């Protein structure tokens, strides 16, 4: 394999993307239009409601009677699936990886506050005040609106045993603003999926590109130069990786301008972009496979939907609105892991080394390398047809 040959072919592909209107539209303009359309349409709260929220409880003062009763009452309400955690760190990790939609941190003085209230219900001077902290999954905007008031209701009616919402108590709940939920919208949860959504169309472009080159004879012409199939595939990979980076940066700029501000440091941002780039390799592989089985550029457009549609519906932001069965089916698709990783890294603030992100990264890398390898092998046969 010669890098010089691959670079020469990559330069040719870059020019094609920016000079051919259909390519420019699908790879660059369409993702921007899509992002802006979704950003303006779903900038406010909306979408489907979750019927049972996954929450975690950490009792910093130990699991005495009041924390245990709260945990029981929340479970009994039917609105929550409660998990008790022994320490804050493991609970925060679960939240950042999307295993929880909210985390309730009961302070060390929680038991004492409840006991003081029960003993001197009408005498606030005898109360021991304490504050309950709530951390919410920013990737699930509905939780910010629903969980705090529901918690207050269960706490008041159960642990504290009061009927009137006007009754003051020694317990306060940290403002949702502490966890940056103000302005949270459905768009915030959609935003990570837009990156995979935009990249998927590369399948169609790569397939059209190769079938057109085959129809016009330029692919056969390149095959009679000292250029190998490996050079050609490498050239495609180089060119479309650059296109994918450019595309991702544009989508990022759009979602940022529309209010999605990733909760990630440089490491998290870099890891996110890396995953998007690896996913581009997967799409190039699907494109090569499509080109190999298509007799014309028109057929390639149609056949590319076989790879495009499942990923579009099950692996991007669309998937979050689908049935649990459909969501499980999404786990067989690389796009699912891209969206999940970006949601964990950028929306939930999970660390790059967290198990969920690592699992997603491994899934994307393995599937992308395998699909690209299959595409390259099939391409060798196609190119010599």
């Amino acid at each position: 394999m010669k890098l010089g040959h691959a670079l020469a072919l990559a330069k040719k592909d870059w020019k094609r993307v920016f000079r051919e209107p259909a390519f420019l539209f699908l790879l660059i303009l369409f993702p921007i239009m899509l992002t802006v359309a979704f950003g303006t349409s779903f900038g406010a709260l909306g979408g489907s409601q979750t019927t049972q929220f996954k929450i975690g409880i950490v009792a910093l003062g130990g699991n005495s009677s009041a924390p245990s009763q709260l945990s029981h009452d929340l479970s009994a309400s039917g609105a929550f699936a409660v998990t008790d955690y022994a320490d804050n760190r493991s609970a925060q990790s679960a939240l950042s990886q999307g295993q929880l939609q909210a985390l309730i941190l009961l302070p060390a003085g929680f038991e004492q506050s409840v006991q003081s209230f029960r003993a001197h219900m009408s005498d606030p001077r005898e109360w021991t005040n304490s504050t309950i902290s709530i951390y919410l999954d920013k990737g699930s905007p509905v939780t910010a609106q629903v969980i705090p008031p529901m918690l207050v209701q269960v706490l008041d009616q159960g642990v504290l045993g009061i009927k009137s919402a006007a009754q003051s108590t020694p317990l306060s709940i940290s403002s949702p603003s502490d966890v940056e939920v103000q302005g949270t919208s459905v768009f915030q949860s959609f935003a990570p999926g837009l990156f995979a959504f935009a990249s998927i169309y590369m399948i169609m472009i790569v397939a059209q590109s190769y079938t057109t080159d085959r129809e016009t004879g330029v692919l056969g012409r390149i095959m009679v130069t000292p250029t190998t199939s490996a050079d050609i595939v490498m050239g495609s990979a180089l060119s479309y990786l650059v296109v994918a980076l450019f595309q991702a940066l544009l989508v990022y700029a759009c979602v940022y301008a529309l209010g999605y501000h990733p909760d990630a440091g440089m490491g998290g941002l870099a890891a996110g972009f890396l995953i998007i780039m690896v996913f581009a390799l997967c799409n190039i592989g699907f494109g090569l496979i499509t080109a190999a089985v298509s007799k014309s550029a028109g057929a390639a457009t149609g056949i590319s939907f076989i790879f495009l549609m499942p990923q579009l519906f099950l692996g991007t932001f669309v998937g979050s609105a689908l049935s649990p069965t459909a969501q499980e089916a999404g786990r067989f698709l690389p796009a699912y892991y891209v969206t999940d990783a970006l949601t964990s890294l950028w929306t939930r603030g999970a660390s790059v080394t967290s198990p969920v992100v690592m699992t997603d990264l491994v899934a994307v890398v393995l599937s992308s390398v395998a699909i690209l390898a299959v595409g390259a092998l099939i391409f060798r046969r196609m190119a010599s047809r």
Partner: protein
Amino acid sequence: MQREEAQAAVAISIDNLTVEYGPVRAVDGLTLAIPTAEVFGLLGPNGSGKTTTINCLTGLLRPTKGTVRVLGLDAQSDGQEARKVLGVSPQETAVYPYLTGEENVRLFGELYSVPKKVLGARIDYVLEKVGLLDEAKRRVSKYSGGMKRRVSIAMALVTDPKVVLLDEPTVGMDPQARRAVWDFILELRDEGKAIMLTTHYMEEAEELCDEVGIIDHGRLIELGAPGDLRTKYQARDLEDVFIRLTGRRIREGA
């Protein structure tokens, strides 16, 4: 190098070449030896096996039987090395419409690893020879059919190849452009290159070719210099010879 000196070596050697597509025998036991510093015309009706023969020479097609060598290199087993000495202009125009003429030629120079310091001058040289230097910065999508064909020839010749294969090189060209390409081909021959071309224009073959081979149904049915064939068949021109050998029935196919 003088033409007579260069003609000593065999540039293209085809020995008992047979290509079958299922039950159809596209090329049937073709044997040819084309020396350097010669323009050889491979003539034949549509579907006679001309392009199949060229595809075997480029290594794009594997022969069912027989061998094909370019400057002693087997087109199959030494394919990578053989391709380095070949310049090929295929039957289809085969150019990138979204690139300029200059970019198309440069791409092929880079794919043949032509050194950067000589590539620019080489691109200008071949584009000037095919009369496109002034149009080099325009995208090929804006070119006429004849201009695209000339770019295709420039792409084949940018590497200064020792052996040149031109499959119907002047289709769609106006008389001036055709004359310029003819002059260029003869210049290449005089430099010692071996050129094999296919054409349906018999006057082109008479003007350019030192020797022609007429094939039909994949078989070589006549071989010789155009003048010798005219004399042999007492024909007024090569087209007359061609019609006598291949008949008047219209053929279809590639």
